[in-house]
């Protein structure tokens, strides 16, 4: 199938340019960029035309860590549903954490999951190998075997490897294999029994806290160990201002450390746990969102690490702007209804994030907190570099992984109509602007927004 994408604006994070250009796609590749005035002359009638008027076209987004739940917890998500949700969010590559059951801790599991992904994946699905056997934190996984099986990174998912000695050995192995280690930073003794961020709101609501210090302590430890071993350390979903400062200082020293942040940690904060108990015009949230739509103690707001404060939101944004934070990841963590429709502290942490990530980020762009090019860079070039690859995108001869976004498209989040199977969106009912109209993965249309009916002949 050949497609001609017309009338859009290309956002190119490699060259940091935005240009008006038409795009010809064929055989899964970008065949040609065409100056719009030449399109009539060059393009032939065999291509289907996609009219991207008013939209921008960017390389498909790369998500460094999602939980796909398959195999083992298919009631929460499957590779099919998760990758479809990813396509709807503009992601053309997603990296699955080893949080399935069994976890990605042997070549056999990797082969099995890869076969499912090939068959059912709507976008590219990369696999992250477990750092320790069964993600149990007591013995290293067979890391060489996992690397040979094609894992793009190592991680124990949402668990911190509490044993610092074992962590050092894991980093040494990863360094030798030249693969990044993705870490969740939480000192378990400081976060025991936690329900939310420790601070003003947890004090008011009487909920046990996860202090920022619990994150910072492990970030500091792992930076020291990365420095000692030469490993490529990647901090997943940093949430605290102190964490950003530690990463910034380490980068200045030349440590090989990178970091990502999620849209919800950038924009939402502890006021969302108050829900309707908070003031409607609370200074702690952007005017374009309204946390008082939620009931108090809404389990959809429970996420690990927890939503923190407005000061943390600001520090994360600053880190994103100055390059301390290299990437934006969705942190997609779908949960079952029973695990989200319950008492707050008993609710499973995690936000169903793939389909709202772009809408939240576009809110930041719209309100001048983030420029569009930086946002796209952190969704594409940043994560690709962390995986040790070079983003070759929107150039003739490269894979046609791309997304068409209408930045003005206003929509109301309806979590009951998510493509993802999982529960847990604090954004249900919120009004967002900016939506994916079409996602192309390897030259095939992986997602097309209802009402975006582009295809006709030239």
């Amino acid at each position, binding site marked *: 199938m050949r497609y001609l994408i017309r009338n859009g604006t290309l956002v190119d994070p490699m060259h940091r340019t935005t240009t008006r250009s038409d795009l010809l796609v064929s055989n899964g590749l970008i065949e040609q960029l065409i100056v719009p005035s030449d399109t009539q002359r060059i393009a032939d009638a065999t291509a289907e035309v996609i009219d991207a008027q008013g939209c921008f076209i960017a390389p498909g987004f790369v998500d460094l860590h999602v939980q796909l739940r398959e195999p083992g917890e298919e009631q929460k998500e499957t590779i099919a549903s998760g990758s479809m949700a990813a396509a709807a969010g503009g992601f053309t590559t997603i990296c699955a954490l080893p949080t399935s059951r069994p976890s990605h801790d042997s070549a056999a599991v990797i082969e099995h999951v890869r076969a499912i992904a090939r068959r059912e994946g709507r976008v590219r699905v990369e696999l992250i190998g477990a750092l320790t056997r069964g993600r149990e934190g007591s013995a290293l996984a067979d890391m060489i075997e996992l690397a040979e099986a094609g894992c793009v990174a190592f991680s124990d998912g949402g668990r911190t490897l509490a044993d610092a000695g074992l962590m050092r050995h894991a980093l040494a192995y990863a360094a030798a294999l030249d693969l990044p280690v993705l870490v969740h930073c939480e000192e378990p003794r400081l976060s025991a029994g936690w*329900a939310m961020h*420790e*601070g*003003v709101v*947890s*004090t*008011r*609501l*009487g*909920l*046990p806290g996860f202090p920022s210090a619990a994150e910072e302590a492990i970030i500091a430890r792992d930076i020291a160990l990365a420095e000692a071993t030469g490993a490529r350390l990647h901090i997943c979903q940093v949430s605290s201002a102190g964490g950003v400062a530690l990463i910034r200082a380490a980068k200045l020293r030349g440590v090989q450390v990178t970091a990502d942040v999620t849209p919800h940690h950038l924009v939402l904060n502890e006021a969302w746990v108050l829900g*309707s*108990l908070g003031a409607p015009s609370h200074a702690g949230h952007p005017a374009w969102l309204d946390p008082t739509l939620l*009931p*108090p*103690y809404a*389990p959809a707001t429970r996420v690990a690490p927890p939503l923190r404060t407005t000061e943390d939101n600001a520090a994360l944004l600053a880190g994103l702007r100055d390059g301390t934070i290299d990437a934006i990841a969705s942190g997609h963590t779908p949960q079952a209804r*029973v*695990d989200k*429709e*319950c*008492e*707050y*502290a*008993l*609710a499973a942490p995690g936000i169903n994030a793939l389909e709202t990530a772009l809408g939240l980020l576009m809110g930041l762009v719209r309100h001048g907190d983030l420029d569009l090019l930086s946002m796209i860079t952190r969704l594409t070039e940043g994560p690709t570099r962390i995986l040790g690859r070079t983003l070759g995108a929107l150039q003739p001869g490269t894979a046609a992984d791309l997304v068409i976004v209408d930045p003005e498209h206003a929509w109301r989040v309806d979590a009951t109509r998510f493509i993802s199977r999982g529960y847990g969106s604090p954004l249900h009912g919120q009004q967002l602007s900016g939506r994916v109209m079409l996602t192309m993965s390897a030259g095939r249309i992986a997602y097309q927004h209802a009402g975006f009916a582009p295809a006709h002949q030239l």
Partner: protein
Amino acid sequence: MTPEPGRRRHVIDLDDVSAEEIEAILETTASMKEVLSREIKQVPALRGRNVVNMFYEESTRTRISFELAARALSANIVNFTARGSSVEKGESLVDTVRTLQALGADIIVIRHSQAGAPYLAAHHFRGAVINAGDGRHAHPTQALLDLFTIRERRGQIRDLNVVIVGDILHSRVARSNLWGLTRMGARVTLCAPPTLLGPAAYWRATWPEVVISHHFDTALADADVVMALRIQKERMQAGLLPSLREYSRAYALTPERLERLGAQTLIMHPGPMNEGVEIWPEAVVAPNAVIEEQVTNGVAVRMALLYRMAG
């Protein structure tokens, strides 16, 4: 959850109850106390209404208090007690609430070990919900009975110095009293070792006037009311306290401290007490101790709420 004049749907905390409404509840409480002083301690106000006591956490005192209150108003009351609630998942709470609704419950009284559980119940229930204590979050009927007791004894609440001492961090009683006392114009001091209190800024962001103290003797100097909270032995095992003996020396209502209190200074405790830890036997029986009156007033306060919500 916005209170309508004269009638409110739920009582989950005092954060959404104005000073005027608290005043009105205390007035109603006085009338109910009069009812309870009669030989026939019953009025027909809630005849035919179904009240369910949902106790996911055992509390004989509060459960019986609600039960007597409902019976004094001629309501039908049923007790539901679930044990092992810490492993109980919300699915069962939501399901139970829906079932009780189908069975015709009008009012649910809920006690739960998890903060916020009453909001979850209220979200899935068309009737009224009264919080009988949820985790560390709130215990509004306890705070109201404390306010009633203080006002009855001291004639006012405004401008009194109230010292709450003990395990503030884990206390729903402290939080609900903070809302109630500050709204009624009292000056509140929270006194505890740092590990049972947390940073002052965390409290002041919500209750700007509250005084945070780690030194009980200083806090006591001009106290009109001292409210001691129970210290659980688990706090010591968790490393939050060096020893109960040291705690007692620094923060208990001991005979020595009793000597230094003004004759009018009320001694309060929400119970159950650990005598010899946070409060010594001498303080429990002191003439200005009102601990038993608190229990007595609890029934009248709960009657007042049930009456105002469904009467």
